[in-house]
């Protein structure tokens, strides 16, 4: 006697906003009638914080501050104990996405040290002899569009051996001159990062030019904090010795789930940066860093 439990949300993209109603159906498929002790739905939104291994040793004291932060929770009983008839049964449900007090629903974000996740879990309790059934599904929350108009502020940059920091032997560096511009560093998360880049000259042929999207996650409180930068994705925009003085487009789509509007709270921060990485044929690695501010409009 096997029953199949499933949750289907009304929206195909599973994206909801604060104040909206999360609606869908619980689907039970079984050949025969299923005896149960009640079916319940739990909606939960949690921020999980984690310390990187390097921080753990240093800040033992943090342990308190890294316990999950609950953003929203709600539980309803969908069906009272009884029997679900055989075949396919659909039970509709609705959850209003309202928060208590002055809490805010942060946007869904899957990171390394910070995870903001919203789940909907359906449990079917059954008698002692049969196993309980459970099914959970994640839904996405997008935060409310930020007020205020975003004025695109292009950033021009020039990279030459002289502009570099952290260089050990400046003398051994080949000569090069790379100019570029980012159309904006305050980006709308649904719009790609754009710009262009011109290799004006380079003594050594270029091997590759990449855009590295980096997340900077900070966890902490009054006692101290841990800040870690990790790579989200690396997008190659040029391969090989590209034509000089021909503009190469900079274009990167912000991946869903792995990015969110830049977030700053009392306990944690999620910020983003982009690195323009130029790899020369002699494996010299030149990086130019640009902090980004992501927002949703």
């Amino acid at each position, binding site marked *: 006697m096997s029953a199949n439990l499933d949750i289907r949300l009304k929206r*195909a993209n599973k994206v909801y906003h604060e104040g909206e109603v999360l609606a869908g159906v619980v689907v039970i498929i079984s050949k025969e009638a299923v005896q149960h002790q009640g079916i319940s739905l739990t909606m939960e939104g949690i921020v999980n914080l984690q310390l990187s291994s390097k921080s753990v040793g240093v800040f033992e004291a943090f342990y308190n501050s890294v316990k999950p932060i609950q953003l929203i929770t709600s539980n309803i009983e969908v069906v009272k104990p009884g029997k679900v008839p055989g075949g396919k049964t659909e039970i509709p449900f609705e959850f209003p996405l309202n928060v208590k007090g002055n809490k805010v629903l942060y946007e869904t974000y899957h990171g390394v040290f910070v995870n903001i996740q919203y789940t909907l879990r359906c449990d079917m309790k059954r008698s002692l002899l049969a196993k309980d059934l459970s099914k959970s599904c994640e839904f996405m929350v997008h935060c409310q569009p930020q007020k205020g108009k975003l004025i695109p502020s292009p950033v021009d940059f020039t990279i030459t051996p002289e502009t570099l920091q952290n260089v050990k032997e400046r003398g051994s560096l080949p000569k090069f001159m790379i100019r570029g511009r980012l159309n904006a560093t305050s980006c709308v998360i649904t719009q790609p990062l754009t710009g262009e880049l011109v290799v004006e000259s380079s003594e050594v042929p270029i091997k590759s030019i990449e855009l590295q999207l980096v997340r900077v996650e900070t966890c902490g409180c009054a006692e101290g904090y841990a800040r870690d930068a990790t790579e989200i994705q690396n997008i190659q925009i040029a391969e090989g010795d*590209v034509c000089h003085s*021909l503009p190469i487009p900079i274009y990167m789509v912000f991946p869903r789930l792995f990015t969110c509007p830049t977030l700053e709270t009392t306990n944690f921060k999620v910020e983003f940066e982009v690195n323009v990485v130029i790899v020369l044929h002699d494996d010299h690695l030149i990086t130019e860093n640009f902090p980004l501010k992501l927002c949703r409009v």
Partner: protein
Amino acid sequence: MATVQWYSRVRNYEAELQVCRLESVPVEFGDYHPLKPITVTESKSRRGGRKGSTSSSSSSSSSAAPDPLSSMLDGTDPLSLFAAASASEAPALSHAAGSGELGRKRKEKEEEGAVGLDFEPWSAKRGEILARFTTTEKLSINLFMGSDKGKAPSPGSAVSEKVRTRLEELDDLEEGSQREMLNLSQQDYVNRIEELNQSLKEAWASDQKVKALKIVIQCSKLLSDTAVIQFYPSKFVLITDILDTLGRLVYERIWSMCSDSRLLPDSFSVDDVNDTAKETCLNWFFKIASIRELIPRLYVEAAILKCNRFLSKTGIQETLPRLTAMIRGIGDPLVGVYARAYLCRVGMEVAPQLKDSLNKNFFDLLGSFRQIHGDSVQNQLVLQRVEVPVYLTLYSPAINWTLQCVSYRAPEALLTEMMERCKQIGNNALLLNSVMWAFRAEFVATRATDFISMIKDCDEAGFPKHLLFGSLGRSLACADPPESERLPILNEAWRVITKVRSPQDYISCAEIWVEFTCRHFTKREVNTVLSDIIKHMTPDRAFEDAYPQLQSVIRKVLTYFHDFSMLFSMERFLPFLDMFQKDSVRVEVCRSIMEVFIKYARPFILNALLHVCKTMHDSVNALTLDDEKRSLALLINGFIRMVSFGRDFEQQLSFCVEARATFCNLEPVMVQLIHTVNQLAMETRRVMRGSHSRKTAAFVRACAAYSFITIPSLSSIFSRLNLYLLSGQVALANQCLSQADAFLKAAVSILAEVPRSISVEGKLRSSEGFLLDFVNNFLSTLLVVPDHPEQGVLYLVRGLLNMVQDYTWEESSDAKVRVYVSALPLLSAMSQETYLYSIAKVDSNETLYGGDPKFLAEINKLCETLIGQVLDHLKTLGTNEGVRRQGSLAFSLFGCLLAHGDLRNNRLNQLSVNLWNLSHKHGYCDTRTSVRTLEYIKHQGQQPNMSHFSDMVQRLSLQSRA
């Protein structure tokens, strides 16, 4: 049964013919008659109105019968109607006010959007590229499924290569596995790629979408690898096939998601797409946008470009320029150019109306053109030991394709601009070549002189010049340059072509220019060109490697020179033919010459063609297939039929003599020759209006002699028999009595040689039917053949009948008796006062004997013997199996008696009644025939002097089947 005395019925052929004819009824004027000239009175403007110009002539009424074919085409033909309708639709719409404007715009848009048939599709190029860009070097495929962090094991590891490959094969394409295949031959490589294509389809079918995507990403990654660079174009073709597969699969999948309730029309809009489909589509794009490497990201996104239609109306329009710009990031110029070609291809397929991105592609290409001559490329070439000209030709397919897309239906101004931009770039031979290749031929032709000077300015070490001239020649073969420039163009071009060293390069270029030369110049120039080709191709027997090109030269010359006298008066034409020294090719060429010759027969130089035909003929040997022989013979026959010396018949005969000597191995040709000679004799007769002079008489006798000595060389017995008979008839018609006699005697004498079975179309069949046919034909000829004064009466008839008697017929066959029965009508006809037919100026037996009673008695005696023989045979058929044959045989004898015997004679009458009864005795006869025969007899009985027929009917009874 006692012998029956024969009495022939006296026939009045003229009267009988009158009776048989239908009564003639004059046709009243105005009556319908299908063959009467048609008078058109009704105006056709109703149906002609739509078509404009053609209607003007058809609206007037004409009394002449219109040609049924042309009247068919005049509007009523559904095909031309459609064509006319579609041609006139656009102007018709523009006449309509208001909404017409809108309609036309839409129409224009459609026209712009659709890619017409005049656009040469990619599929046509594919095979060409694969065949052209090959390598003998070892290739490798390096695939990392899953994460690419793990490095390939160093090649120097202890495990031998083979074992490693095997181990890797075991890993297959599992998640996270990596595979490196080294030392692949080109064929292996192609097979591997095909395997990948298959596993992509399998992965897709088993719902492993991620794996499918991974396969495609890995494959497109191979496109960034330019090791073994001369294979790159082919690699591109192979891998883009896989990308196309993915593009199709994804599009179909999403499309099917939309059509849960109803099928989505092809022209769907974004609003018709449901959320699930959109989400899936979006997922694909996000997934692709996060592909790390540039080249796979570019190719895969281009592959599913069409899917943008599910997301937004302007998606494709926005994506194309972005992808175009993205290609700038590709450093290797070759890789970049091919990426552009792919993008153009996808763009043309998905959104042909978006010309801008195509143009932008081209201008970007120009922008990065200097890369081709950059240091990185040079280093790579040195490393791979590839020469610059070879390297540059690798670009051609991609640039050609890009330009083809750009220039497709492009306005003149744009083309001019592009050309100007190309001119400004240094080292532009490669571009020049593609421009000539891809732009409209007319465009190139009008600027041919410019192009030549540009070509001359090109760098010697770069793109091979003969290819440039080849491309120019190709354009000029399709479109004509201005009249005044033609000769200078040819001179300039040929000056370069003739300097090309390598015979292969030379001929491939010269071959193209032959067309231009033939098209616009006279035999003098063509002759010069041919002699130049001979000069280049003869040293070291270079022609041996260039047969296809040489053949194509001949074909082109033949296309433009139909006048064979001109063709063969070209000094170098026959020497050119001598270059074809391989038998099969030689025959092939001769064939094409003959085909053209037969098509456009004109006065010509005989010897040359005889030479051509002899070549074909001499290729026949013991191993030649029958089909081959037949088709060769067909061509030679065609040739022989075309030969005519007008009134010079003797010349014609001597040609036939020569031809006989030349083509002795092909029997059908011999047969044709005999027919030709016979025809010649009859033609002579016609010219002389039946009465020969001494000279012509001698000539026709010579013709007869020709046939007489040619026929025995044939192996087919029936050809011999029939030709003897035919030639005999011809000789008779030409009053050559002794010759005719000889022919017929010869025919009779070889009758005995006829085998019992002959092979017809490979199957063994009894010859009896053929023999019977022949004998009947022969008998009817004998009526007009006068007896030989030195031989006995009816010498030939007797001879024939003796042969028939002695011939070993098949057992249990009535053929012999049937011959006897069919001899009876002949004998009966011979005993008439005037014969049914005769030959002008030849006295038949009717005049020779003048109804001499002795002669008649001879005939009757002969008939008696024959009837006796038949009756004897009938008796032997009394047994069980024979009764059916007995019945039918008796009935045919009855019919013969009825038609040709004088039934007023009681004995004959009685005999016929007996035969009737015999034929009905066993009920095997066809009742319907019997009934109709009875009716006939009744009908005949009503004629005067035929009353005995009515009496006879009384005695004939129909026997119902037991």
